[in-house]
């Protein structure tokens, strides 16, 4: 299981309580597979984190883990080991920008 922290607006959309959710990951633990797992568990989030068709990250969404910015890493990048073994969460973050 991968621990995931979603931004508040996406938690509201997905109707989850608390700051953190967990998603199962039975394939190679990569950026793409954790996003697949999030969207599979919460279909309402399809299109809100990455584009429906191209699967590109939305411009104002960032991915962090272990104090590292993974936003620009290729989709097949393996998640850091502390995320894979559940010691650290994977963070989906709304970019800090006005509004």
């Amino acid at each position, binding site marked *: 299981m991968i621990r995931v922290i979603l*931004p508040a607006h996406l938690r509201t959309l997905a109707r989850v309580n608390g700051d953190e959710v967990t998603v199962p990951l039975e394939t190679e633990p990569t950026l793409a597979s954790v996003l697949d797992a999030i969207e599979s568990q919460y279909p*309402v989030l399809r299109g*809100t984190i990455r584009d429906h068709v191209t699967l590109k990250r939305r411009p104002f969404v960032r991915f962090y883990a272990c104090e590292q910015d993974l936003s620009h890493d290729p989709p097949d990048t393996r998640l850091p080991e502390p995320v894979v073994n559940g010691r650290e969460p994977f963070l989906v973050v709304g970019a800090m*920008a006005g509004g």
Partner: protein
Amino acid sequence: MSGVRVLVGTRKGAFVLTADGKREQWQVSGPHFGGWEIYHLKGSPADPSRLYASQSSGWFGQIVQRSNDGGKTWETAGNKFAYDGVPGTHQWYDGTPHPWEFKRVWHLEPSLDDPDVVYAGVEDAALFRTGDGGQTWHELPGLRGHGSGPNWAPGAGGLCLHTILIDPGNQDRMFIAISAAGAFRTDDGAKTWSAINRGLKSEGIPDPDAEVGHCVHRIAMHRSRPDVLFMQKHWDVMRSDNAGESWREVSGNLPSDFGFVIDVHAHEPETIYVVPIKSDSEHYPPDGRLRVYRSRSGGEEWEALTNGLPQSHCYVNVLRDAMSIDALDPCGVYFGTTGGQVYGSADGGNTWSPIVRDLPPVVSVEVQTLP
């Protein structure tokens, strides 16, 4: 007693305002979807309890919400708006080609007789349709297939399809408007479209009376006379008596012929309303006086409606989807401002009062007349 439900979309959420037929005491619910831009909400004419809302955000994109109980509870619908085929390019602000990219839904227009059928006008401009209550959306590609798409250019708000009018006597006929491309009409259920901009003249495009390129802000019709259309263009208030085949200017004595909203009285097809706005780029009422103008002659001769509206130091705007008219008698007129006020008149515009004063900037106002 019958009543009304006013659906208000704002920059930071949706609000639902309800009142009985007197329209004196209002209940306010919201914000719904707080923090999200709600470009438009609209109820189904076939089932007033069925509402649709366009919810969007610069961070998280487009969401469509649906309610089956008049806005008490909501559920998410489908949000995949994929253009049909290879989207191609339109013009960018400087005239260079720019790829078509979906950004948001500006306007949702439910079918007149089927609550599960809805048309969506989107940015970058295209028309989508759902037949399953919003679960799936499909582009109606005939519009962008008109052939003039590479010449469409965005207005200041983007290349948006913001107006969808369905002819109540012949639902294969629809009118849409795009800023800045112009108005279009289909007579075959959206398979093919004609540009209907003859008579429009626009500064800012190389050929002022070109077939397309006009910044149409809004068009309106009375359901009893679907061949008569009224238009608020970037500048000029226009009228067509032949379903858009030709237009003539009816700005008459307006203090500014720039504005965004235009709408038609519920029971008097020749009575129309606009809110003049000062431009270039100021986009607030002339002289700081918020005035609705009413013409009882289908244009040309206009009277200022000021009773209850601020007549000094008022510098708000009224955006294109932010006026609506109920079907009671006398009919009610409603509009929202970028200052967060929603004003209502229960006597056809003679007197006004604020229903709410301090909402986030109002983007859209729709009213439902309830049995």
